[in-house]
């Protein structure tokens, strides 16, 4: 399991905000937790995959994409805030996320 510290959420948030700011060529000040990834930022599923890879490497996570996908089917991610929540659960629970 990844180590969750007091700073982890802030760290995850910073990575997610910076990632979408760069990928979607949007000023970071225009991104908020309730920003819709698809309709507001024109994001796509490949971006989501890329972010997962970033977090897998950063936190040395052992988690399969299909496990995350199964979780997301039950808990759809539409906003930046929901994405951050999901990344936090990934770090905390890794493959057990599917049992949540």
């Amino acid at each position, binding site marked *: 399991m990844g180590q969750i510290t007091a700073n982890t959420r802030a760290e995850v948030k910073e990575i997610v905000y910076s990632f979408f700011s760069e990928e979607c060529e949007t000023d970071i000040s225009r991104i908020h937790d309730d920003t819709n990834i698809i309709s507001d930022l024109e994001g796509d599923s490949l971006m989501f*995959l890329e972010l997962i890879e970033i977090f897998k490497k950063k936190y040395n996570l052992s988690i399969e994409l299909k496990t*995350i996908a199964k979780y997301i089917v039950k808990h759809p991610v539409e906003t930046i805030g929901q994405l951050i929540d999901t990344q936090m659960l990934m770090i905390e629970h890794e493959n057990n996320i599917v049992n949540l």
Partner: protein
Amino acid sequence: MAASIVFPAFVNEYKGTENRINRDIGITFTRLLESVSGYLNTDLTGFDFRRNNFLDDELKSQYISYIFSCSVAGFLKNKNFSPSFVSGYSMGIYAALHYCGSVDFLQGIKMIKQAWEILCRATEGGRFGMGMIIGLDETDLGTLIEDRKDIEISNQNNPYTFILSGTRQAIEIVLEAAREAGAMRISLLPVSKPYHSRFLKRASPEFAEAIGDIDFMPPLYPYISAMDQNMITTGDGLRKEVIVNLSSRMNWMKTMNSLVSNGSDRIFECGAGDGLTRNARFIEGEFQSFSVDKLEKFIESAADK
């Protein structure tokens, strides 16, 4: 270090701003639309990027994609830009061959028309299609299709994205099974032909005969095969490539790997859309990828080198 040009497949959706990317490209595109309309006796001049009004006509969509790619390619040529390598994603091969100087513009149009007519005959009486699965690996995917003779993997875009070709029914069944197995995303592609699969094998000899009168010139720039990643430098090699392209499995991930390992540090997607550029994020190596929206940046980067 080097820049490479890759040509996307037939585009199914336009942003609506393509004809405003560059004035010269817009003018060329309009002129070529008129030229092709006269050549084919089919009116393409009513095409509007904002309305996407030919989306329900696969063949017209193919012509439009080819014409736009050739318009952008012509702009690069006028800038005296000279790439180190060229490759074509799927049916992007036709515009790539024209850019390489192997065939002229109308020969490319003729090949698209002939391929389409032959493929229609080859698939007559059946319903076929293609699908995309993101988020499963090849082993998982192999398990889903291992006992099926009506579907096969026809391309791999990146470690997580595979394209399937087969009967429409099989595609729909396997896509749904993939979703159940944990695919991040599944989608039915808006095409009616199972490109890059054995289901089109019988079309290849007929296509070879149909294009027999075209004299393929040696390419001005080395062409990297999307099928086996060989470097093609002869006209005959390109003729064989365009024939097998219809019914052979491709591997775009390996093609991109090959471009990068051969020293490409900038890769430009020469056509509408940005699918190949987005996909490039999952290709390993130090390189930059540019879609047509970033044409000016790409030109500037070429000037800097």
